[in-house]
């Protein structure tokens, strides 16, 4: 399976990345090399093998539903690129 520039453009859109023409070419070449290497996994018969998503047996962590004080706004917005009236400010979502 070979990746074309149009595939890289599509994946970049899904990943919310703008790529320059040079980046598109580089990534096409590099992703092809990496995925070609990954084809190696097909040498193995994994029929009937359960996937390991995690090495631990995970369970939900629940806490008591108790009321706590919220973080002060000053802390919440300490790293905000832009805020106004106690809200994170972004460009208009609807025109």
């Amino acid at each position, binding site marked *: 399976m070979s990746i074309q520039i149009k595939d890289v453009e599509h994946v970049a859109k899904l990943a919310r990345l703008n790529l320059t023409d040079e980046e598109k070419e580089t990534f096409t070449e590099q992703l092809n090399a990496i995925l070609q290497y990954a084809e190696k996994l097909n040498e193995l018969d994994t029929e009937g093998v*359960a*996937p*390991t998503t995690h*090495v631990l047996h995970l369970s939900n962590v629940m806490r008591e539903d108790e009321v706590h004080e919220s973080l002060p706004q000053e802390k919440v917005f300490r790293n905000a*690129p832009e805020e106004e009236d106690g809200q994170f400010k972004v460009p208009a979502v609807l025109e």
Partner: protein
Amino acid sequence: MTLFDLRLQEVHNRLHEKELSVTDLVDEAFKVIGKREEQVKAYLTLDEEGARAQAAKLDDKLMSGEARGLLFGLPAGIKDNMITEGLRTTCASQFLKNYDPIYDATVITKLKAADTVTIGKLNMDEFAMGGSNENSSFYTTRNPWDLSRVPGGSSGGSAAAVAAGEAYFTLGSDTGGSIRQPASYCGVVGLKPTYGLVSRYGLVAFASSLDQIGPITKNVEDSAYVLQAIAGHDPKDSTSANVEIPDYVSALTGDVKGLRIAVPKEYLDGVDPKVKEAVMDALKVLEGLGAVWEEVSLPHTEYAVAAYYLLASSEASSNLSRFDGVRYGERANHAGSLMDLYLDSRSQGFGPEVKRRIMLGTYALSSGYYDAYYLKAQKVRTLIKRDFDQTFEKFDVIIGPTAPTTAFPLGSQVDDPLTMYLNDILTIPVSLAGVPAVSVPCGFADGLPVGLQIIGKAFDEGTVLRTAHAYEVHTEHHKRRPSL
């Protein structure tokens, strides 16, 4: 011999006898940093003012005779992907270049409770993605043994700082070998604990099913002390294991008589002959102490790198979706729409390796390719884990080299991601299986350190550290220092 060459117990004895103060230790740290940092470039942020204030507080505690923490007074450096309240945390990324955290990671809370002094945040590959430290978006840390070579990655700053004497100990994080490989390249001790033993709360996530925090130290005993301080269940981390924490320090008995060691043939094939020789010599030392070893096969080793890069990149693409320019971090100016804000902020905030992994992960998880890549890799992960489970039915530890070569020259692999990925071939299988492993210095090849990797059963850090310690006390490699 400097203060930083003393074992923890010796430092504590001197503090107790008032021959030394915490301020003296911090003075020494900054003296060495002043002398060597320009060459090594291990730190991204130094906090001299905060460190001196903390040292003064601890000196008061010392004078008043209050109970002292396990790591009392030790100047520590922290990899810059662990959140430190009020101390800039960048992940070596332009995205977070001014990020000022509002809380502490659990490991930081624990280190504070153990009375350490944080002296700064250490350089790394951006978002912990890389094997050489050359992916830091600020500058590359250099190997203290040879400044023209890489310190390893991604915890290169953490390993270089310890090797150069710029911190008493440091914390690193390991996803596919990022503690062990730089420890090997820099001639120090790096321990990746069992997945889940140390809380990941406040560690900026790269690949959540693999990431694990661990200590980098000059000797095995110090590593046991630091692990003791940071291990333990954390209700804030849903992947934290609720297991009893043994006494790691008292596990260092020096006794390896009858210890059963497995040596995978796949870990010796294709490695640099001088690296292999150092490992075989180390096995002789352990044999001389009464351990027995046997060659075994871990047949799925050769598939680990491919599985790892699909899995880790997939998890990374998901974890890094939170960086959108809205609540913190890099924000593109003049974005006309919300979508442009996301696209532009992410494109200018992330470096090439991070983008490459996000792209690979997004591709592997996308409709039509999920089964072929991501699911397949998860099944191969099961086979790799089985290799370890089966081996540990008969053996106590698995031993091999940490990396196939010694530290390579800066710039030599930077344009070839696949070759760079293959440097981690001996550490990645361990990460996929979630088991603990330590890298200890076991010799030198052409003046560069070689690391011995000792791998154990899940949550059996005691045996891993005991083996490493027994080896270390019968050898001198860990005592050598780079001439900077």
